[in-house]
């Protein structure tokens, strides 16, 4: 690709690298390289070789670059490969360099092990961003540039790093760099590139069609999985952002920082709960998972939901804010987050309905050291879509989103949200600064929503790479500006899977609906005793039906007038009706927290909620009548339900005719709505 000289800059008195390009480059290629190198000179990142100057002298094109003392990775990689710890470290740095460049619309296009220099201190420097292509370039320029570049690159001998889409003649994008990163990491571990052959045709064919040969068994599965994902033939199946690869590599780096004891490769002990009665569960049973401030209780009933067996407490003395039942791919797995003021927060799972639980030696969810943050609690466990059965999300405090691609083995911080410029100005509510709700759009795998107290609703349309605040129309009481861009104390958002464009929201004061993916919100607090509250659940079958449990105020966080009432709308918030049969009408100064209400998926739907005073109520007839299922539990923070052996199925809405509540709210009720504004 040219000749590199060590040179001395006499003006700035520094040694630099001076690269001259071959004269054989045609005028188009030279113009192209000049333009792109100028763009790359704007990059400033510790893992990118800085371009000081670009230009032409006597018809020769040159680049003046930072002089780096080090060895190309291609030289350090012996036939046996590098230690995997080094590969993780180098990989995270290369991914960091790509994150920086991609964020500025610059794709490397020629990442390979000889373009990665490692200094004696272990610092990685990626070279030759000068060949990158500006995505923003006009299409005709791009096409011409590609033609030129192809001839340049293929003669440069970098076919082994080319992605399938580039080989097919497509322009390629950021994800082609992630493919190349996968090749580099594979090569660094195995000592040779994954796709080889005697001829260009054989190499191309292997890239296009063959899976990469398995990595040596000594490579941790988490690292192998990351490389495997970078090497997905279809760009859509790879990581979509370099920041995701960076976060995944950082996560396994910190997870492998402490060696596992030799007798337990999984890094997890098992906690066996003896001396307590466990559930006997069969297919078709309904499960209730109840998280309290002092442990988890599990309940089981037949589909009639008339009598309940109870088991627990599991995790004696620890609080559980988040629970989930994973039945994807035929699993029967319970997930629980445990929080101890003493020992910290851990994620646990059970495949035996609570008889045994994993007890990870190392906290799998942890903030990277450079973030300076410390995990306080795990507030939400959200299973990935059915088509991504190994994906799990967690919402945590301090507010951040974590994602696992491997069934909870390793976790990575979703950097796009964590690095959002709003984050420093989010402020904690009474419960702490938490990301407590995660909603996945079932129809669009790139779109999801999170709710943060107090930051508001944020959405991504690109699978988590970038996030936008979606709070227009949501009023706040705790700031002088009443409709700020962000900072709302959202208590819950819900969505019906058949209408993912519509969201319902219970705010710290205020009930809202959005009909446009959260772009704007309208007030729907018509006929409720208070628009303050925490819990909100969507009916699993009817997209117009939502349940809430109003609380009097933020000062007096109890049910209004000591009367425990669930409210339901069946017309998407046009009106609300109280559901009270079987619930105490006086002397019940209760609080129901944001995750302490849920529905099952049966027909008629069962609805369940737990109170801070430790009472668990349920209705097996959509809320018409209620029964107290249990009394005397510790304060309840989380209630989830599941039907055993059934994937949670969302049925088509029952007809298109909307059922308008028979009981319209009276003017007197309207006047009682407390608006502390």
């Amino acid at each position, binding site marked *: 690709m040219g000749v590199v000289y060590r040179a001395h800059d006499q003006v700035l008195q520094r040694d630099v690298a001076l690269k001259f390009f071959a004269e054989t480059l045609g005028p188009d290629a030279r113009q192209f390289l000049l333009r792109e190198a100028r763009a790359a000179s704007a990059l400033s990142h510790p893992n990118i070789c800085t371009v000081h100057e670009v230009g032409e002298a006597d018809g020769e094109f040159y680049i003046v670059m930072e002089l780096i003392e080090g060895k190309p990775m291609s030289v350090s990689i012996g036939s046996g490969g590098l230690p995997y710890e080094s590969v993780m470290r180098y990989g995270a740095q290369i991914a960091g360099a790509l994150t920086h460049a991609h964020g500025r619309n610059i794709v490397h296009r020629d990442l390979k092990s000889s373009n990665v220099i490692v200094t004696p201190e272990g610092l990685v420097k990626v070279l030759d961003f000068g060949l990158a292509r500006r995505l923003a370039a006009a299409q005709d320029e791009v096409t011409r540039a590609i033609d030129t570049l192809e001839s340049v690159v293929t003669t440069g001998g970098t076919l082994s790093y080319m992605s399938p889409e580039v080989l097919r003649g497509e322009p390629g994008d950021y994800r082609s760099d992630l493919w190349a990163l996968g090749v580099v990491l594979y090569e660094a571990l195995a000592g040779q590139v994954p796709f080889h052959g005697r001829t260009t045709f054989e190499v191309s064919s292997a890239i296009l069609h063959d899976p990469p040969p398995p990595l040596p068994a000594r490579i941790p599965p988490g690292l192998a999985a990351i490389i495997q994902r970078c090497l997905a033939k279809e760009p859509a199946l790879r990581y979509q952002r370099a920041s995701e690869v960076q976060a995944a590599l950082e996560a396994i780096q910190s997870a492998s920082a402490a*060696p*596992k004891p030799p007798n337990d490769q999984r890094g997890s002990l098992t906690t066996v709960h003896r001396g307590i009665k466990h559930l006997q569960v069969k297919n078709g049973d309904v499960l209730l998972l109840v998280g309290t401030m002092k442990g988890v209780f599990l309940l089981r009933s037949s589909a009639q939901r008339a009598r309940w067996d109870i088991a627990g407490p599991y995790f004696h003395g620890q609080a559980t804010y988040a629970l989930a039942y994973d039945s994807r791919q035929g699993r029967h797995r319970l997930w629980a987050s445990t929080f101890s003021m003493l020992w910290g927060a851990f994620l646990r799972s059970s495949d035996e309905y609570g008889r045994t639980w994993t007890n990870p030696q*190392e906290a799998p969810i942890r903030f990277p050291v450079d973030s300076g943050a*410390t995990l306080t609690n795990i507030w939400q466990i959200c299973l990935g879509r059915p088509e991504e059965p190994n994906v799990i999300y967690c919402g945590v405090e301090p507010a951040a989103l974590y994602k696992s691609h491997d069934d909870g083995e390793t976790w990575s911080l979703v950097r796009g949200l964590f690095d959002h410029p709003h984050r420093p100005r989010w402020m904690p509510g009474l419960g702490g600064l938490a990301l407590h709700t995660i909603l996945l759009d079932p129809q669009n795998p790139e779109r999801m929503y999170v709710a943060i107290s107090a930051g508001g609703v944020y959405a991504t349309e690109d699978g988590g790479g970038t996030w936008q605040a979606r709070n227009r129309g949501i009023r706040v009481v705790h700031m002088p500006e009443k409709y700020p861009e962000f900072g709302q104390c959202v208590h819950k958002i819900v969505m019906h899977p058949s209408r993912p464009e519509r969201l319902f929201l219970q705010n710290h004061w205020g009930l809202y609906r959005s009909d446009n993916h959260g772009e704007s919100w309208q007030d729907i607090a018509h006929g409720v005793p208070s628009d303050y509250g925490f819990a909100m659940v969507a009916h699993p079958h009817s997209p117009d039906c939502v349940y809430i449990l109003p609380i009097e105020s933020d000062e007096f966080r109890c049910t209004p007038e000591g009367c425990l009432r669930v409210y339901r709308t069946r017309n998407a918030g046009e009106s609300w009706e109280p559901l009270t049969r079987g619930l105490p009408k006086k002397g019940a100064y209760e609080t129901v927290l944001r995750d302490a209400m849920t529905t099952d998926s049966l027909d008629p739907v069962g609805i369940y909620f737990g109170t801070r005073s430790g009472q668990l109520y349920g209705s097996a007839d959509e809320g018409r009548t209620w029964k107290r299922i249990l009394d005397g539990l510790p304060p309840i923070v989380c209630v989830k339900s599941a039907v055993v052996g059934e994937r949670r199925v969302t049925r088509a809405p029952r007809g298109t005719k909307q059922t308008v509540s028979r009981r319209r709210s009276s003017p007197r009720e309207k006047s009682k709505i407390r608006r502390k504004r």
Partner: protein
Amino acid sequence: MPVTVLIPGPLRSFADGKSHIVIERSPTTLADALEVLWKRCPGIRDRVVTEQGQIREHINVFVGNEDVRYTGGLQTPLLDGVEISIIPAISGG
């Protein structure tokens, strides 16, 4: 001289059930001793210190009878044969 780390009941499942772990390598500071402990019993580390390497807020570590918060934290020097105690605070709710 070795030093001894006393393991509180809730963490003994990560120490093969042992109530104390003897660290033979004559560590000179608390940090050195804990590094050895983490290698022997990796499950204890994340329950005693945060991912930022700080002792958790409601965990007290004593060298002898002194709370290390007042003796230099993780850099507290260790005398030969001293006992290190990891003791949960009486916080709670």
